[in-house]
């Protein structure tokens, strides 16, 4: 093999190994960042009183009102938890993004700038050749730097992320329990009152009440799914990140990339499912 051929072979190897291949990590992080079910359910939790208020009287109503102001006071803190996870995932997506560590555009403009000025006395062909090699070497250097940065972020972020996600799951469980108490109060009122008005004299009232119960039941059924989806989504995000940590030295292998891809797909599917329920 000639020396020229040798150099090209080396450059080709560098190009191939230089490819960071972090697309799947980025996709997973992006999908995780877009998963907003927790925030929606937190808002629903905050608004509990406005929905249950018409069905409450006396002391129960006073207590519900007190709960209302406490929920509103806690709302921002409850959201911040999720905001931070979102920011983490957005940053991870950016860090593993294809363009973030790409300097080829800057190098192109450098070569272009030199070529525009023949007065510098540099041959255009030489400029192109040097720019080509520089780009390959830079790509190799930056992509290994990128891989290291992504690895460091995942390792540093895993423990706090897992704790935070588990905390979010616990909070969703409280939201769901609060929701159950609301549902049982609203529907329960009719179970208690309807039997006493179920006579020909009160037909109109009883009919309206039954129609109202029907629509409320449908509303609560739809919402119940969202709690399940949120819990599942958070769990998949947590599992996905655990997978990243387990394979931290092997993030660019095909098997690992495939399994990370599945996590991104699952999270996306759950998010789509929630959107469908809302729509």
């Amino acid at each position, binding site marked *: 093999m000639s020396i020229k051929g040798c150099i090209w072979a080396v450059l080709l190897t560098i190009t191939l190994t230089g490819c960071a291949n972090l697309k799947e990590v980025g996709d997973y992080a992006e999908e995780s960042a877009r998963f907003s079910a927790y925030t929606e359910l937190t808002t629903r939790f905050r608004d509990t009183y406005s929905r249950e208020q018409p069905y409450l009287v006396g002391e129960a109503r006073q207590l519900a009102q007190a709960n209302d102001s406490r929920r509103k006071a806690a709302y921002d803190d409850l959201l911040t938890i999720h905001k931070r996870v979102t920011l*983490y995932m957005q940053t991870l997506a950016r860090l593993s993004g294809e363009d973030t560590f790409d300097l080829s555009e800057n190098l192109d403009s450098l070569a272009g*700038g030199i070529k525009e000025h023949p007065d*510098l006395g540099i041959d255009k062909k030489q400029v192109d050749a040097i720019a080509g090699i520089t780009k390959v070497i830079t790509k190799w250097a*930056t992509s290994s*730097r990128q891989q290291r940065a992504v690895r460091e972020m995942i390792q540093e*972020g895993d423990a706090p*992320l897992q704790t935070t996600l588990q905390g979010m799951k616990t909070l969703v469980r409280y939201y769901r329990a609060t929701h159950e108490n609301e549902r049982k109060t609203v529907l329960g009122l009719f179970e208690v009152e309807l*039997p006493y008005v179920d006579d020909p004299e009160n037909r109109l009232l009883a009919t309206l009440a039954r129609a109202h119960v029907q629509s409320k039941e449908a509303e609560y059924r739809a919402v119940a799914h969202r709690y399940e989806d949120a819990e599942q989504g958070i769990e998949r995000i947590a599992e996905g990140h655990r997978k990243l940590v387990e394979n931290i030295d092997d993030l660019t292998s095909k098997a690992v990339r495939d399994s990370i891809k599945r996590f991104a797909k699952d999270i996306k599917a759950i998010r789509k499912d929630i959107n469908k329920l809302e729509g």
Partner: protein
Amino acid sequence: MALENERDVEAVAQCLSECADAVHERIKAAIKNREIERDQAQSLFQEESLLRRRANGLYIDAAKGVVAGLAESQADLLAAIDNAKEQIGQIKEVARFIDLVADLAVLAAAVGAGKPAPIVAALKEVREGVEAMNPQPSDVV
């Protein structure tokens, strides 16, 4: 331990909710068997509703406990985010440096050609490039 407390609070809240469920079933059965009058049913339901509101109040306490327990993790997560952002910032600096070298090459060419207008234009580019690398207000012209 904080976590144990939340668990306990949640357990009590759950217990109250279950009590309310039991009261509700009892009211329904009593109505069905015509054991109670309407006003009795209403006041029993009122008790049930009160139990549920108390349970919901406890869930808020538990939620606040979770939030407080996450403070440290939130700070650690923010540190990981900041470190990653610094990495991104560093590579952006390299990019700006390469741009600056490109501008310098142009400046060198302009000086070589000895034409004032391109020199001034190239100087401006270089100055902007330097400023981009040191993003702080410079009052030195």
